[in-house]
């Protein structure tokens, strides 16, 4: 045994208290990590999809207003499932010999509709051009067409309730414009832990039976999200007050 090896062994003997302390600390940390609850994922939670929108030049104020084009159909993907990072899209194949134009439809006498014919490549080009046109057409540089900042700071559950109710909050056009100005109704919903409405009570009716019926229908047709665990009893016994207005 050489002198160098001997000194190393001597030093190793002196390390044991540090090794024991390290093992103890790691054990404690491991136990803490196991005991601590992990992050709770609510499967019903809808992901917040953020989109950056760059708006074009503001429309000159002296110009007459233009009708905005119909928004594209809502993308149901982000509503129901978390967004996964997409694979890079494969390049679109060129127009094949079997590509045929879609027959053009023209609504008569409604508003003129966009031409839907053309190959896929033409359609992409058309979409690109129309997108550029739209970007240049209108908008306020500091506008926020899709955002709803209020939701971020509010109660997320209540925001989801409002969103769910609003989907079914449909009022017949037969109600006159003047009457719409003062129509209000308040309903208390008693909500089961699974989100079902156990019962509902009118706290205040509007006085217009058609409107009141529309409110009742909105409540009955809506499946609410399950309340948060710590508030389930309160929503079931005390209820949630919903003020409907136009």
């Amino acid at each position, binding site marked *: 045994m050489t002198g160098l090896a001997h000194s190393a062994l001597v030093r190793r003997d002196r390390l044991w208290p540090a090794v024991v302390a390290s093992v103890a600390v790691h054990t404690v940390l491991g136990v803490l990590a196991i005991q601590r609850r992990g992050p709770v994922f609510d499967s019903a939670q809808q992901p917040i999809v953020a989109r950056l929108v760059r708006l074009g030049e503001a429309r000159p*104020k*002296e*110009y*007459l*207003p*233009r*009708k905005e084009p119909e928004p594209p159909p809502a993308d149901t993907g982000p509503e129901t499932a978390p967004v996964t990072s997409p694979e890079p899209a494969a390049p679109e194949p060129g127009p094949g010999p079997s590509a045929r134009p879609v027959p053009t439809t023209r609504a*008569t*006498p*409604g*508003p*003129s509709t966009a031409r839907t014919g053309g190959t896929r490549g033409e359609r992409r080009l058309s979409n690109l051009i129309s997108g550029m046109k739209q970007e240049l057409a209108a908008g306020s540089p500091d506008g926020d067409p899709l955002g709803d900042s209020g939701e971020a700071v509010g*109660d997320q559950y*209540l925001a989801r*309730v*409002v969103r769910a*109710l*609003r989907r079914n*909050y*449909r*009022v*017949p*056009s*037969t*109600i*006159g*414009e003047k009457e719409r100005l003062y129509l209000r109704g308040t309903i*208390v919903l008693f909500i089961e832990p699974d989100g079902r409405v156990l019962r509902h009570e009118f706290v205040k009716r509007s006085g217009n039976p*058609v409107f009141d*019926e*529309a409110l009742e229908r*909105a409540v009955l047709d809506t499946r609410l999200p399950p309340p948060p665990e710590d508030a389930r009893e*309160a*929503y079931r016994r*005390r*209820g*949630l*007050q*919903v*003020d*409907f*207005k*136009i």
Partner: protein
Amino acid sequence: MRFARLTAACLALTLALATATAAAASADRPRVVVDAPDFHPLPIAVASFLAGGDARAAAEVAGVVRADLARCGLFEVLDPRSFLADPGEGLAAASIKFSRWADVGADGLVKARVSKGPGGFSADLRILDVRAGREVLALTLPATEARDLGHRIADEVVRHYTGEPGIFRTRIAAIRRTRDGRELVVFDADGQNARVLLSEKALLLMPAWHPRGGELLVTSYRSGIPELWRYRFSDKSFRRVNTGHASMGGSWSPDGSRIAFTAIDGNGTDVWTCNPDGRGARRLTTSSALDLSPSWSPDGKKLVFVSDRAGTPQLYVMNADGSQQRRITFQGSYNQTPQWSPRGDLIAFTARDERRVFDVFTISVDGGRIQRLTQDQGRTNEEPSWAPNGRMLAFTSDRSGTPQLLVADPGGDRQTVIASGAELMTPAWGPFPAD
């Protein structure tokens, strides 16, 4: 006595405690506000009408009712081919299987039995609430013609759901260009039943209805210059209104006591008013610019008109005596043909936009908010005229080539061509019928 007081005190205490508990629960209760509803047409089913003798007439009446209700924008008229109910189902609520109507999405159900008698037709009409499973209206309507009966039924349906009279028995006057000149034509509100009142080689323009519907005021060049003429339905007379000036674009005041018009004289083009016989003419605008196309507010206290005093034609409002003239449009460089809504809240007008095409717009009288009704539908959509209930507009459009007559709701939805063929211009929607 003491026991009674004790009992009363206990009751009061209990009541107070209950009230306080309820108030506390209410105060603690979370609260949300749900607004901005989706306004949607009321889904309504018009069942095949039962025939009391004339099946063809019953089918025609039902067709008219469906078309009227669909056109007005208040209802979503369900396709009869989707109906699941027995076609022979009766009128009484007890005999109706409401679940079958609910299954096709109907909220309202219109049923009728159409009978033909010596004096014409009659309908035993029922309106039913499908969800509640009950009858909400039952009445009998007479009419001399099947189409008129259909319009009467549609009017009653609108009246039931909105509390306002329907417009399906009103008429629309317009000028039609012919090979030889112009015709003054009157259509039913659905564009059917066109009747030529006048056929002139001279230029005819801008008919305007008397508020009670018995007369039309028309601009005619019969004597070589534009003048106001009155056509009376009762005796088919056509008489000149002597205003003392070359005059055009007459408009009756809502009470029929005055006529507002544009006069052209040595002092320029200005807005005047006069009595229906032309006397008592009074000049309301005195600017050196062109002031023209007056239209009355429904209360008769104000007039909207066009003036180019600011350099371009814009809409202005003034009191009926000419005071307090103020500009109301500040967008667009060519705004014209204003028509004040019978509801008083909106003014419809034609405007040329930056692409130099003409479209129909409305502006709110209070806030000045401009809404566009037509866009990218031909090069010229113009000369709007309000239905007497203010829920629809008629206008002309060259979207299919020759200008044709269309109706739409005030948002520009449900645009429907109701008359086409020869060139149609300057439509004027008439008042509610007298009966």
